[in-house]
């Protein structure tokens, strides 16, 4: 099956400043690709090129097989887009807004009414549907903007920092929603927060200064992992000790000098999570301070910090 998104050597340049630099990637049907990078790394620009809002300086982008420049209408017809700033018409009612966005995407009559009902149900808008958008809380505004993106059942859903500015419970709701939607459609989601991407994406692309540093699948990672923060005499000493604990397969320091109190973050790949006790005992007997230990899904943090440190240096 053809990929839903193809980005081919995308470049966006403002004057001499390259915001996006020769980025190529593909997103296959059913995938959730996370674009991860600090603020200003070009994530939003890439999304805006894919949605036709910005034109790339060079390179090509296809959505559902349609070139976003030469076949913009067809491409945009197949994309639902949730911009970061949650732009809404505050003079409209929720239902009116969703109906407007549905009509804009070519829905009419009964099909339109059904589509608006379905999207409202998906986002549990309930009684809020009859309210003026100006009266909505931040959480409901976020739901409405996601609902409009889903109203015509697009093939691709693009979410720009969908959990920004939400409270912890709302963040979990949005995460759950992305997970359940990923069963029906292809999703492209950005965040500057590692944990967010780890929790929802099946693949991740790491961006810095407009360049694509790495592309990584999050499903095929090896055994269970532990993330530790340890204060010790030196990173090497801690690492040697950790590597010697039975059951620890690999250990890698994540950021050798970056924590303020002299401690460092380590990611251990272990045979099973019970090894955690042995690790704690070994550290205690060597008089190293174990400040934190928890299970982690990926070694993305190491990859991310390693890549971004290397480039910054």
């Amino acid at each position, binding site marked *: 099956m053809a990929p839903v998104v193809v980005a081919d050597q995308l470049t966006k340049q403002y004057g001499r400043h390259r915001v996006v630099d020769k980025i190529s990637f593909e997103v296959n049907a059913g995938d959730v690709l996370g674009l991860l990078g600090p603020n200003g790394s070009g994530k939003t620009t890439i999304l805006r090129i894919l949605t036709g809002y910005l034109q790339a300086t060079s390179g090509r982008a296809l959505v559902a097989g349609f070139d976003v420049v030469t076949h*913009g209408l067809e491409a945009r017809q197949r994309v639902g887009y949730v*911009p970061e700033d949650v*732009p809404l018409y*505050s003079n409209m009612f929720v239902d009116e807004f969703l109906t407007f966005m549905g009509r*804009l*995407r070519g829905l009419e009559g009964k099909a339109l009414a059904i589509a608006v009902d379905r999207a409202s149900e998906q986002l549990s808008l309930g009684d809020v549907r009859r309210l003026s958008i100006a009266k909505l809380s931040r959480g409901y505004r976020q739901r409405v903007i996601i609902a409009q993106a889903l109203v015509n059942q697009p093939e691709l859903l693009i979410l720009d920092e969908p959990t920004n500015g939400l409270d912890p419970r709302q963040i979990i709701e949005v995460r759950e929603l992305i997970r359940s939607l990923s069963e029906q459609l292809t999703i492209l989601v950005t965040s500057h927060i590692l944990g967010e991407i780890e929790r929802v994406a099946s693949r991740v692309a790491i961006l810095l200064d407009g360049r694509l540093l790495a592309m990584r699948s999050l499903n095929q990672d090896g055994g269970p992992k532990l993330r530790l923060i340890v204060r010790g005499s030196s990173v090497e000493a801690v690492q040697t000790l950790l590597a010697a604990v039975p059951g620890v397969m690999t250990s890698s320091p994540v950021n050798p000098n970056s924590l303020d109190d002299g401690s460092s973050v380590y990611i251990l790949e272990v045979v099973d999570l019970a090894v955690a006790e042995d690790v704690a005992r070994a550290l205690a007997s060597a008089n190293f301070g174990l400040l934190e230990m928890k299970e982690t899904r990926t070694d993305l943090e190491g990859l991310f910090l390693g890549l971004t440190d290397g480039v910054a240096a």
Partner: protein
Amino acid sequence: MSLVRGSFKALLSKETKALFSSTIAYAVIVVFLLLMGYSFTATLFINKSASLIHIFHQAAIMMLLLVPVLTMRLFAEERRAGTLELLLTSPCREIEVVLAKFLASMAVIVAMLVLSLSYPITLEVFGDPDWGPVYSGYLGLLLLAGALIAIGLAISALTSNQIVAAVISLGLFFLLWMLHALGSLLPSPFDNIIIDLSLSARLTPFLTGSMYLSDFGFFLSLIMFGLLASVRALARR
């Protein structure tokens, strides 16, 4: 094609609703009609002639003042609120977005001019007006409003600040209106070129009952220019 028409209808009804559900349209219409009514009554009692020439001239000046109020927010507000991104990433064309805003603003002007028909009707009831200049005068005002709205839209599309859009539109409108005064100071052939670009020089024949194809062409070209400039301004992002 049916898809495109559907989305255009959606845009047009959204724009019309936004203008008529805000107080802006009503404020513009009421102020216009109040001032026009005042001068209509005053000139009628002073001149005792069944003609609308004075009124039309004043209506034109009012348009220069009121059109920026209508157009200033049309794109500037969408740009500020970020909703422009929502519109332009949905499957509709830029020209549809521009045309919807243009036609909705024209609807306000048409409503305003239809209500002002009470003046010629009053003249008809109590006197014997010459209807020729009335028809051509209304046509001239419509063309002028069209040109001003199109240019005002383009200016609004360039900025995210409504006030900036209004001030620049106002300045440009008055400059274009008074261009003939500047033209008459210039040596030939520049004098004629500049005078030909003056809004008031182009409008005056309509108000006195004479219609020239060149004046039609002038206003229609201005409308086309303004609409295309708006599309260009939107594409610049």
